[in-house]
């Protein structure tokens, strides 16, 4: 049996200590000074070999230098205020080698008067989930940056014709800020006075939903000036399930209308 601290072993039924020890997730208890006084088997298994016992250590000793001060300060604040601590994420140096991101769920240990005397914490390794999330977020930022950087005016509508994305080139092109176009029906905000596709048909939003179309037309900008434009519009097809999500259109000025 792992030598648990006096704090726990004196207080608890050995059966409960055994139960805590066998829990399927890493569980630790800290005293009011923040020192680890109990660590179950799953928590001990996280310790890098040669790092000694967890009991007697401070959790911030396992963290990168830049997280230590905040973590320590936050712990003592919780002890002082007695407010239930929120779920946090911490980088912990573990037996897996290197730092891993752990989600830490905590509750205060209180004495009979309700005064905090320590903290319980259950930790969950969320490194992979966090990396997947960061990857998706970075990919989103990269793609947003691409759209925003395009020199061509690009407007994206959803499948109902409501404007969902307007890049800076389109803001400049029409004179409307993105915030005033987003959420508006494209045919109302950017009225098209005339438009002929290269196949000779008159363009409508529904036509663009059904298939790519290119043509020339005349639209009004924010100042109600006429713009002669070339528009190429194409349905946005969901890569995963093939459904049509909306329409992406690229707008170019052809020449000023006299």
């Amino acid at each position, binding site marked *: 049996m792992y030598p648990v601290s006096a704090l726990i072993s004196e207080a608890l039924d050995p059966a409960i200590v055994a139960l805590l020890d066998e829990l*399927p997730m890493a569980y630790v208890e800290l005293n009011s000074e923040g020192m680890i006084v109990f660590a179950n088997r799953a928590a001990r298994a996280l310790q890098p070999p040669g790092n000694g016992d967890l009991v007697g250590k401070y959790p911030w000793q396992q963290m990168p230098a830049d997280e230590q001060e905040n973590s320590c300060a936050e712990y003592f604040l919780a002890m002082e205020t007695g407010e239930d601590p929120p779920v946090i994420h911490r980088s912990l140096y573990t037996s897996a080698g290197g730092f891993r991101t752990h989600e830490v769920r905590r*509750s205060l240990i209180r004495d009979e008067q309700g005064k905090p005397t320590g903290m319980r914490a259950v930790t969950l390794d969320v490194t992979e989930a966090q990396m997947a999330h960061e990857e998706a977020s970075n990919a989103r930022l990269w793609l947003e940056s*691409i759209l925003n950087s*395009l020199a*061509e005016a690009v407007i994206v509508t959803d499948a109902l014709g409501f404007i969902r994305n307007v890049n800076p080139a389109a803001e400049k092109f029409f004179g409307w800020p993105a915030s005033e176009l987003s959420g508006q029906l494209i045919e109302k905000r950017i009225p098209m006075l005339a438009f002929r596709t290269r196949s000779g048909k008159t363009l409508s939003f529904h036509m663009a939903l059904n298939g790519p179309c290119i043509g020339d037309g005349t639209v009004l900008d924010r100042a109600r000036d006429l713009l002669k434009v070339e528009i190429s519009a*194409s349905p*946005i*097809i969901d890569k995963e399930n093939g459904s049509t999500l909306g329409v992406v259109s690229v707008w170019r000025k052809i020449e000023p209308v006299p």
Partner: protein
Amino acid sequence: MIFQDPQETLDNLPVAYLEANVHGVIVRANRLRRALHPLEVGEIVGKFLWDLVPAGDRESSRVEYLESMQAVGPMPVIRRSIYSGDGRFHILEIHRSYIFDENGTIAGMHSMTIDITETERAHQEAHRAQQWLESIVDSILEAVIVTDALGFVRSVNPAAEQLFGYTAAELTGKPIEKGLPILCFADANVAPLNFSMALDKSTKAVATMLNRERQPMKIEISTSPIIDKEHGYTVGVVSVWRELGAAA
């Protein structure tokens, strides 16, 4: 003294905890675990584990549990969607381990449950946003090629594949100036467009280049540096290519 009562100890755990015996009967559940279930489920202690899962999953859950009690085997982390006491569906991640009696025989299972609904929702949202933006770039009728800050091609949309005859896989990872060489520029008075120039500012040029079949094409190229929205760094160049006709 911190704890007196085993139930109090479990009730104070910061995650939902449940214990079942070898027959699958729930013998202990803490406060957070009990709160996960709608009121009509009532007291969960004394019920079978499979009484808490949707009707369609009960039999498979029962068989799986009883099989796992036959011999020590892996107890992987599982995910379940449940209709919770707050009237909403929650996604739970369940961590389990065996309980052994004093003779080392399997006596049941510990289970600790984390509600990952919000984390999962945030992840799905980021993934959906990524899919949406990828679909937009792929759907643009104009040929769009994206390079990183070193000039290596990072993405090629279907319109660009069609324009040049190369697949995205063939161009991705190559320096753009090697993948799509420019033969000459239309305007001899304008400085020839190069990658470094495109990193600094938006550019536009008309040039003659070769497609995959080595046929010359007259192309209008407009480029813009890609500025990282969060940090303001230039992270690459996005270029739009359109054919103006066959080169003379």
